[in-house]
């Protein structure tokens, strides 16, 4: 197979300061309130992220010592609910490179990794340690190593799971659609064998592959 194009900067390792958000079940409606999801652009969401909470005095994201932090430490079940990718764009536009939690909403995590926001799960005790240290010290830093599959801080190292394909995409700066399109022939072959009775919204459309009809299958 021909190697895929490499349009993005490889992402292998990141070190940054942290923001501790000690709340569980932070759904994507909280990360990105609905009114901002009416936008048709994919960037410029930094003003909108956590909008409802940011007006609360003392909200951790707005603490002066947290400016420039790039790693969000979140409570369990972060990013549950709506599939809105705007939540990921908001965190990324704010400047986050990684979000760590003991458990994520599935769609959020997938959206995040597709946007190269490193949503990585660590065991609960690890999260608790990181959170406590970050709460005490705004200059506390962690290092996320995509290649090694570890998060390190102050001499502690924890492993995270990352599927092989995502790791490969991140480490090489590949675009996942370009990677899949290299398999266009296999997709085409599959499509000519789909059962003929499956619904089609526009059966007359020129994109419909010549499928076998009921007569041909007998």
């Amino acid at each position, binding site marked *: 197979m021909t190697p895929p194009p490499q349009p993005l900067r490889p992402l292998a390792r990141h070190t940054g300061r942290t923001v501790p958000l000690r709340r*569980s079940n932070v759904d994507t409606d909280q990360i990105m309130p609905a009114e901002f999801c*009416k936008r048709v652009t994919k960037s410029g969401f930094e003003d909108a992220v956590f909008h409802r909470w940011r007006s609360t005095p003392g909200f951790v994201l707005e603490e002066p010592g947290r400016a420039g932090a790039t790693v969000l430490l979140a409570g369990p079940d972060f990013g549950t609910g709506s599939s809105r990718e705007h939540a990921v764009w908001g965190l990324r536009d704010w400047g986050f490179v990684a979000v760590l939690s003991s458990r994520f909403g*599935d769609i959020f995590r997938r959206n995040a990794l597709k946007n190269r926001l490193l949503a990585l799960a660590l065991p609960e005790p690890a999260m608790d340690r990181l959170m406590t240290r970050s709460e005490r010290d705004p200059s506390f830093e962690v290092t996320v190593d995509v290649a090694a599959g570890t998060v390190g801080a102050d001499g502690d190292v924890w492993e995270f799971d990352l599927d092989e394909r995502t790791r490969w995409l991140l480490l090489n700066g590949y675009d996942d*659609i370009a990677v899949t399109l290299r398999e266009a022939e296999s997709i085409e072959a599959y499509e000519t064998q789909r059962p003929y009775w*499956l619904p089609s919204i526009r059966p007359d459309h020129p994109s419909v592959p010549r499928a076998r009809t009921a007569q041909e299958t007998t």
Partner: protein
Amino acid sequence: MDKPRTLAEKIWDLHRVPRPADATTGADDLLHIDLHLMHEVTSPQAFDGLRLTGRPVRRPDLTLAVEDHNVPTDTDESHDPVGRRQLEALRRNCAEHGIELYRMGHARQGIVHVVAPQLGLVQPGMTAVCGDSHTSTLGAFGALAFGVGTSDVEHVLATQTLSLPRPRTMAAEFTGTLPAAVTAKDLILALIARIGPGGAQGHLLEYRGEALRTLSMEGRMTMCNMSIEAGARAGMFAPDEVTFAYLDGLPHAPAGRARQDALAHWRTLPTDPGAGYDRTVTIDVSSLSPQVSWGTNPGQTVPLSGTVPDPGQFAAPEERAAAVRALEYMDLKPGTALRDLNVDTVFVGSCTNGRLEDLRAAADVLRGRRLAGGTRMLVVPGSAEVRLRAEAEGLDRVFTQAGAEWRLPGCSMCPGLNPDRAGGRERVATTSNRNFEGRLGGRSRAHLVSPAVAAATAVAGRLAAPEDLT
């Protein structure tokens, strides 16, 4: 003999595109997508991505778009300039790529998860995706249907596939005898209360068991709809005679010879005896009663006959902290009876409970009654077709005579994205699926309920079951 497989595994295997040996895929499978549904909110950036890379839409004939999230429900014209730009983007994108679009005012318009099933576009054994987490609704047909983000929408537009690791499977077994007052909504709320909002995280969840035998397709859709509220990737029911009868005669369902061929295939799909799930949870329905959420995630739910819990009763510190926060937001005290809570607004609608059966259930309670003074009630059909049918049965007059508003189809109050927003600190009884902070607009406080409880609440002016009404 072949290894016994679950419904989800069979559908997965049927949709795997064979991959070349040298594709670097890790544990992923390349899954072909039979049906790609779209709406205005999560698609514009995907089309922009195609434009930037010069990629065409691979299968416009397997793609359908509707306008639902930000449409107003009192007129066929959007007067919100920002919302309108999003609708215009969808119209432009669909025109450019030859994608069928049901616009506001079209006879087939409505909430995407209500529209697709009633057209017969969702059939057993299919894969379906949409840039919307409640795509899980469609699993009621024995399909593998799940929500995706905008990046995946673009991936499906360009390739008609998704590269995914095979999820784990989970069974929710419902045993016992279903009490008459317990609806599909109560069943799914009770399950989420039991396993928590992350309880099925990462799993394909199959609803099974004797107690669900009597559920209609609409009830199954209600349950599958809220699978995502339990954290599941998708929810599903095995297809059976109820499924096949529902599909018979729908515009896109197979007919004649094709139906016979399809039926032979559909009957092979249910989980084989002896097939194993990665996890199983069993729930006895015999002692269940109508449910209502008290907090700010759907897992924070108790029986309507119960009281607001004390955070101290939760063992896990995170859960306790979440309960404290939720009580504060919801303005509730531990020990308060749910039935004592006054409600400002009642919303009947959404992809959870905006189908004909739901409207009938609400109308049955409202017939010959009036809303409590000061209570506002919105009844919003899930689609134009539901609206027409409800009107043919005279349900609209039941609603308006009771003092409720009968509106045009759309997501309405559910997402807080269109003019039907709850304002201020309104307390709302809603048949939708999410009670998140501010979900319905403003700093409103939402209680998730079934259509019957919603209607009884509108009459009583406080949370109530039909049996409470005199």
